[in-house]
């Protein structure tokens, strides 16, 4: 992880280089000016741990591949968005208007990303969001200069899981989810695909963020006679949910299928055996045996002594994506149109996100998606291993994009359930 001192040092060396090139013609010196990247992450607040992993993943790529593209140094300024949209907005302004970054990357919490997206909508600064999953940013309210490189949307991820559940013989499922937009979208994708395929959503439970006690929900879930339970929790809620699911005796009785966050490394590495056998769906699977994933996981583990989570992985892949695009345009990041075009045209190969990843016309990636299961590695560490693969999954699943976007956004009241 870069700290500020290192950053200052590298800036100092850059200015030294700049000073030594004074004799060159002005145009050459302009070319050698650094490419400035503004990286925003929650380094304080509820998602500080995830924010740290985000920066680590992004940083690992540059450590591995050098901080220079087309003769220009890469200069990364990290800002803390404090998991708060007002702070995020403030920091985005500082990065763009004072640090003069060429583009922005990052953020985790949807509302911070939405706030920054609304800001760059006005000034055209390119903004890349490997974690911000709010559906409408690449659907109904898309912004041309906001691209979801190496990212995902909530509803995208749970549709293959619904399909897999049907094929696995689950007919009746109940959902239990955090009551906010990301949860509504994750559940909505599942509920719509599952019911359209003939499944039945018996009941949906919505609990507030930071729920300490899940027993009221678990008690009701127990008596519903469902084939499986779909859980959608993030961070500490996910840890508590998994623990209480096991303590309540539901583990091993009713299979638990979940959003990717429940089985994410950031959650399961902190727990005992509670998350074992949880089935989830993601575009990344740290236990996959392809070369790219094995190399990335190995290097990440060596560097940071832990297995990578979704935050680190997506930002590692995001940095890789940006490198390809910037190389293609010869480092001329000042030309925003050209940069955005190059980013749109990238076909990412050899990343931990699978053999090939590219953007759809709406700025959202299409890639293979894994159905994965929590298992134990030889050394006893828990990780997700693939049990099925769905090729080329995009944000619209099998729907026609224009027709799909005519249906309302997922919310507590609209879950796309077909009765």
């Amino acid at each position, binding site marked *: 992880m870069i700290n*500020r001192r290192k950053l200052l040092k590298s800036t100092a060396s850059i200015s030294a280089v700049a000073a030594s090139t004074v004799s060159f013609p002005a145009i050459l010196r302009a070319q050698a000016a650094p490419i400035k990247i503004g990286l925003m992450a929650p*380094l*304080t607040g509820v998602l500080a741990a995830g924010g740290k992993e985000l920066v680590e993943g992004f940083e690992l790529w540059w450590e591995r591949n050098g901080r220079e593209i087309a003769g220009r140094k890469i200069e990364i300024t990290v*800002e*803390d968005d404090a998991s*708060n*949209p*007002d702070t995020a*907005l*403030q*920091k985005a*302004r*500082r990065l*763009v*208007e*004072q640090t003069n970054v060429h583009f922005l990357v990052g953020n985790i919490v*949807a*509302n911070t990303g*939405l*706030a920054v*997206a*609304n*800001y760059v909508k*006005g000034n055209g600064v390119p903004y890349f969001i490997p974690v911000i999953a*709010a559906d409408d940013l690449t659907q109904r*309210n898309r912004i041309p200069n906001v691209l979801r490189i190496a990212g995902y949307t909530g509803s995208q991820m749970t549709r293959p899981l619904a399909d897999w559940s049907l094929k696995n013989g689950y007919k009746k499922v109940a959902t239990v989810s955090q*009551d*906010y*937009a990301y949860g509504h979208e994750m559940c909505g994708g599942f509920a719509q695909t599952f019911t359209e395929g003939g499944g039945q959503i018996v009941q949906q439970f919505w609990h507030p*963020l930071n729920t300490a006690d899940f027993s009221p929900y678990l008690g009701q879930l127990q008596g519903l006679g469902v084939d499986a339970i779909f859980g959608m929790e993030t961070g500490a809620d996910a840890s508590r949910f998994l623990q209480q699911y096991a303590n309540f005796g539901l583990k091993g009785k009713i299979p638990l299928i979940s959003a990717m966050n429940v089985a994410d490394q950031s959650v399961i590495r902190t727990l005992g055996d509670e998350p074992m056998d949880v089935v989830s769906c993601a575009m990344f699977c740290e236990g996959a045996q392809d070369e790219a994933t094995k190399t990335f996981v190995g290097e990440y583990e060596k560097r940071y002594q832990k297995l990578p989570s979704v935050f680190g992985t997506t930002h590692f892949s995001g940095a890789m994506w940006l490198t390809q695009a910037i190389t293609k345009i010869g480092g001329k990041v000042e030309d925003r149109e050209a940069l955005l075009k190059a980013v749109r045209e990238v076909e990412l190969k050899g990343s931990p996100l699978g053999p090939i990843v590219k953007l759809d016309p709406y700025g959202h990636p299409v890639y293979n998606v894994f159905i994965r299961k929590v298992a134990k590695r030889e050394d006893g560490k828990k990780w997700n291993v693939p049990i099925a693969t769905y090729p080329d999954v995009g944000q619209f699943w099998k729907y026609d994009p224009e027709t799909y976007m005519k249906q309302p956004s997922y*919310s*507590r*009241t609209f879950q796309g359930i077909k009765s």
Partner: protein
Amino acid sequence: MTSLAPTVVTTNKSGLRSALAWVGSAAILFVLIALPFVLKSYHLGIATQILIFAILAMSVDVLAGFAGRTPLCHGAIFGTATYFVIYGVNTWGLPLPVAMMIGVAAATAVAAVFALLAVRVSGVYFLLLTLALGLVIWGICLRWSQVTGGENGLRGDLRTGALADPATFYALVLVISLCAFFAMRRFVNSPFGLTLRGIRDSESRMASMGYNVTLHVFLAFTISGFFAGVAGAIYAVFNNFVSPSAVALAQSVQGLLMAIVGGIGTLVGSFVGAAVIIILEQFVSAYTERWQMVLGIVFILIMLFAPEGIVGKSRTLWHRRK
């Protein structure tokens, strides 16, 4: 309270002092007007934000410093206006000025309702009751997601045309904040304002003198809510975005802290407090991730060595140097 005493004494020295004060005020005003010609857009944005929060802090000061009732709900009143402005423009298609007026009206109405409930109590009970009322607004904004966008909030497209230019917007906010300052100063120095100070110092005495204490506090609360609404309506245009963090407890605490750091009961201290807190936040967070800790230490130091706030302390020092 001592704040009335210096105006009574009219020696030559105090004449000199008031002349100096005038020169000082003129200099500050000159600096405020000159800022757009010196600062870049980002710093001008910070200056604009300081002015907006100064209005919020002053509205808190009217209640806390003059009526002796410390509120913890002004962030919620502020944010109510912000929500209404963005919702009004987005969903009702209102022109921005109309939406802003509706926003301020809504904030004033909320303040009036809060006032009705809170005027009965004082002291720590007032603090707790207003805190709870503020949380109600926060809860509504968080849970009523069909209207408020829930956790994700609402995005607007308000800063178009001339408002998009940071200098123009700053100038506009400067004019509004000065108007708000002079209006509130006039208000607290009016005979009505003096009754508020009387209530602050001895509620029972004011009541026995025949003043309707409840009504006076109610009016002060509502008027202070009006100004918090003005700040919130401008904030909607400034940020172009609103989420529950705009109505959260942290926002109310922020407003109160600014008033306290600057100097409770000084009004002008709110500008100083807002400037100190926002600049510190900006400056410190550029150097360390633990900026909130640094801010906390600064607050503790201020409370230990200048509990009357920066402006309050300077005034005391100024008058001691006779």
